[in-house]
């Protein structure tokens, strides 16, 4: 295995043109590759619409869930109103008490790990960390994470996808009933009480919000966390540097997210026949915003395949851009920054034992997206 498991599968394709005309699910998809073009298209929701149930994620998800996800699969002006409903919940990571809890959690998890000979970082560290942290965001008892951990890394796509998707939906339906027993303003009770244009949300709308909160914030966080751990194992100098220059934590966090870009791309539907940088897209067909290509665009990023803890500016689009910019970003950023700080405080070095890269195979490219499994040892300071 190469020391750096990452590569940019779109580098050569970008030199050939701004679009990769490929296919998913047997349908044509024009992937937009350059950073500036991706940013522009992400803001042009009239031409590139998110009003496309099950089709914003690529491949499409009809078989994996029963409801349209909110707010992601909607356009303004509805999107703006749907998004407002859950914004207060997603902004909780800005509260000092929330941040303190996250520090406590990550300290505890690192300490437990360092007492072990080795840890499988995907399932024994990143997944439980992601699930336990999510209980804070959703305002539910931490014990709920035990159930979520059992769903595995992807929920929707891991192995026997449909069954787990159903299990998760069943869990959510029950959670809406149980939520009155949990802390005030938890995510589920917030949705129970929320109104949209003067009416309560429908059961499907509520489920669509919950579905996305579980599915969207899962492998994204897990992949980024694993990438960080593996990077420090291979580059102990960077861990040392962060220890000496803690003021770099925010900068480094952005750089790890850019480099990981755990959500490779996302779909948009063209309501009308459109020409996208020379590619003809028929009405109702998809284009994709390829965050992973944009974040390695060397017309914007100097030596994009290098991780530079002090990269500035860092106009990456790993969290998207425009109206749908990731709602979970404050939470994800807090996890990442807290992890970086606590690693520098508690860990002297990380030993890489073995790793199996996770590869996204498609008709026209293969992309390494973090790890399927990652065996490490965290050495206590």
């Amino acid at each position, binding site marked *: 295995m190469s020391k750096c498991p990452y590569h940019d599968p779109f580098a050569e394709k970008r030199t050939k043109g701004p679009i990769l005309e490929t296919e998913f699910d047997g349908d044509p998809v024009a992937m937009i590759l350059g950073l*500036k073009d991706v940013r522009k298209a992400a803001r042009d929701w009239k031409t590139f619409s998110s009003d496309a149930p099950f089709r914003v994620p690529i491949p499409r998800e009809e078989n994996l869930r029963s409801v349209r996800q909110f707010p992601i699969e909607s356009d303004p002006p509805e999107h703006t109103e749907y998004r407002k409903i859950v914004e207060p919940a997603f902004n909780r990571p800005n509260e000092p008490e929330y941040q303190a809890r996250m520090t406590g959690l990550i300290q505890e998890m690192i300490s437990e790990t360092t007492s072990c000979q080795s840890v499988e970082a995907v399932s024994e560290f990143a997944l439980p960390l992601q699930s336990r942290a999510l209980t804070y965001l959703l305002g539910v008892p931490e014990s709920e994470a035990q159930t979520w951990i059992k769903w595995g890394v992807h929920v929707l796509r891991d192995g026997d996808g449909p069954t787990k998707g159903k299990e998760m939906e069943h869990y959510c339906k029950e959670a809406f009933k149980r939520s009155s027993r949990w802390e005030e303003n938890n995510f589920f009770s917030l949705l129970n009480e929320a109104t949209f244009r003067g009416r309560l949300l429908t059961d499907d709308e509520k489920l669509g919000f919950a579905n996305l909160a579980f599915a969207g914030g899962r492998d994204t966080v897990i992949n980024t966390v694993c990438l960080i751990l593996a990077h420090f194992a291979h580059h102990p100098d960077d861990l040392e540097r962060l220890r000496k220059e803690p003021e770099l934590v925010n900068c480094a966090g952005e750089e790890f997210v850019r480099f990981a870009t755990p959500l490779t791309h996302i779909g948009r539907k063209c309501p009308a026949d459109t020409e996208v940088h020379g590619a003809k897209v028929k009405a109702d067909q998809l284009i994709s915003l390829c965050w992973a290509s944009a974040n390695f665009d060397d017309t914007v990023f100097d030596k994009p395949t290098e991780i530079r803890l002090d990269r*500035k*500016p*860092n*106009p990456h689009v790993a969290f998207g851009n425009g109206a749908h910019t990731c709602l979970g*970003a404050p939470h994800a*950023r807090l996890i990442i920054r807290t992890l970086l700080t606590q690693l520098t405080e508690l860990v002297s070095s990380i030993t890489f034992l073995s790793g199996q890269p996770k590869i996204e195979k498609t008709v026209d490219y293969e992309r390494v997206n973090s790890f399927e499994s990652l065996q490490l040892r965290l050495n206590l300071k």
Partner: protein
Amino acid sequence: MFVRNKSTLNERIENMAKVTFVTESGEEIMENDGTGNLMEIARQNDVDGIIGACGGVCSCATCHVRVKPEWMERVGRPGEDEQDLLELEGRADERSRLSCQIEMTDELDGLVVEVAPL
């Protein structure tokens, strides 16, 4: 127009540099108890439209403001990193600055900036 002034009567604070944020809805928020950069001051005071998602490291541009013309000279031009990010914003103009890159100083007492739409 609603003016919110969070200052206390404490004289030390009274003497600190003031900055006014004009938000998209036209609300004017005057702050004179802030230190640090303008993004941090805005966040501490829940100024609408200033998010500061990346924590001030020139990555997110969610701290975009437009400096009132009469203040532009004193505030100064964006640095190179900042300019690069602003150019990607699409909606930036010659009055645009990223508020995380503006340190509040006594010289800027009375500063007025408009919060740019996200």
